[in-house]
């Protein structure tokens, strides 16, 4: 077998990546057989990558290595994992169901701790002073130095407070929205929600454009440019 030099590998990689890029972009015109071939190949590559990752990062270092070093107890979770394979059999599928039930319980229990860690701090962060005097007092207590005028922060906090209440009101399920104040607040909440969605949509466009531009740069400057000498 002749050995392939690093330069040759670079070229192969370049061409392969180029063809892959064009194949996927052909979808923008129309779904077609070439695209389909690359779609399936991508699935194959991805699954094998996921699989080899698991093999290298879990099976070997967490199971095989400790087992061969005498830590026999790691064999027990492996045995439990085998129960997954009973899903297809009607008679023994209770084993998979029991395993899954246990895992669901673990997921639920873990979720409680996650909610607390992820979301509870946001409750406290929503306690914000609404008057300039109070803003200054809180700043002094926390040694915050900033050039922003206190009245500005107080005004921002007020807007924040109203938005929070309005949007939360919109989501109440168990009240018929009959009370006029509730109806109006919920309506305001829906509008603010839409502003929030618009904001996220608009701010994502630049980021997504960056991705496409990256690919264009690749095709034009890396791939074609390799032969024409174009440089960014």
């Amino acid at each position: 077998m002749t050995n392939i030099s690093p330069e040759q590998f670079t070229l192969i990689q370049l061409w392969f990546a180029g063809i892959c890029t064009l194949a996927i972009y052909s979808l923008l015109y129309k779904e077609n057989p070439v695209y389909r071939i690359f779609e399936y190949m991508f699935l194959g590559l991805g699954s094998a990558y996921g699989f080899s990752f698991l093999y290298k990062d879990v099976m070997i270092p967490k199971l095989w290595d400790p087992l061969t070093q005498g830590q026999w107890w790691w064999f027990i979770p492996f045995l439990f994992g085998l129960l997954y394979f009973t899903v297809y059999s009607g008679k023994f599928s209770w084993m998979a169901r029991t395993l899954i039930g246990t895992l669901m319980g673990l997921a639920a229990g873990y979720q409680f701790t996650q909610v607390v860690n992820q979301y509870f701090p946001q409750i406290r962060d929503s306690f914000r002073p609404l008057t300039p005097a109070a803003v200054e007092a809180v700043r002094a207590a926390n040694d915050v130095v900033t050039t922003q005028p206190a009245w500005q922060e107080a005004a921002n906090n007020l807007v924040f407070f109203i938005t929070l209440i309005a949007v939360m009101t919109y989501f109440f399920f168990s009240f018929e929205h009959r009370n006029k104040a509730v109806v109006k607040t919920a309506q305001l909440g829906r509008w603010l929600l839409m502003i929030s969605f618009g904001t996220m949509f608009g701010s994502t466009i630049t980021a997504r454009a960056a991705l496409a531009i990256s690919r264009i740069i690749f095709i034009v400057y890396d791939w074609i440019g390799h032969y024409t000498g174009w440089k960014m």
Partner: protein
Amino acid sequence: MQHASWTVGILLALLAGLILYAIFTARRGKRLFIRRIPGLNAIDEAVGRAAEMGRPMLFATGLSGLDINGLQALAVAGHVARVAARYATRLILCVADPQLYAIGEETVRDAYQRAGRPELFVPEDVRFLSDQQFAFATAASGVMFREKVSSNFFFGYYYAEALILSEAGQSIGAMQVAGTPATTQLPFFVVSCDYTIMGEEYYATTAYLTREPTLLGSVVGQDWGKIIILLLIVFSTLALSVAPNANWVKYWVNLFPAG
């Protein structure tokens, strides 16, 4: 936070207690009111549409793993599968997490059985595609193109693949219903799907679909929980604004965990 402080413990217990209380009141037969969520009626509509056109439907769980969001997605999938079985419509479930795939297989099989049509269940229609984000998105879009699906359901936790899937569905003219607690992807579902179930409505979905007292009670309990949080915020904000230097206010605020 490695371990709960006592305030956190109390707050968690209070929220859980309210929800459980509401659940058991509902179970004892108390009638509970919940308002309409437009997107949820659309689920049955979408199944009906597929039955009429004689074409399959696709249900994708996004990148959800074996966690509460993923399980909730499968609970919705179970309901859709039951309706599908009733109309003898094909449902293709696409999953990105292998463990969730195993549960999905069981859930859909069970749904067909319960609808009295076990013979309609096709094991190949529950598919593990890939645990790699974009390989999953491409493969699920591929299923849409090749099976010419008439309706798409996107339930679960989504990342950037949300718009890839929903635009693929748009391009073949499928009716699309999405539901996700992933706040970053909601805008994209809102603009590209026919109906979007937003944020916490996602956890109330099964309650609306099944009208089970347990689930309805749980939805009412969620409302009570939110009222508690809202009251906490209103009270503390006002206290902080009126008496920012009072010791009890400082003590009170410090009871809550900071980020």
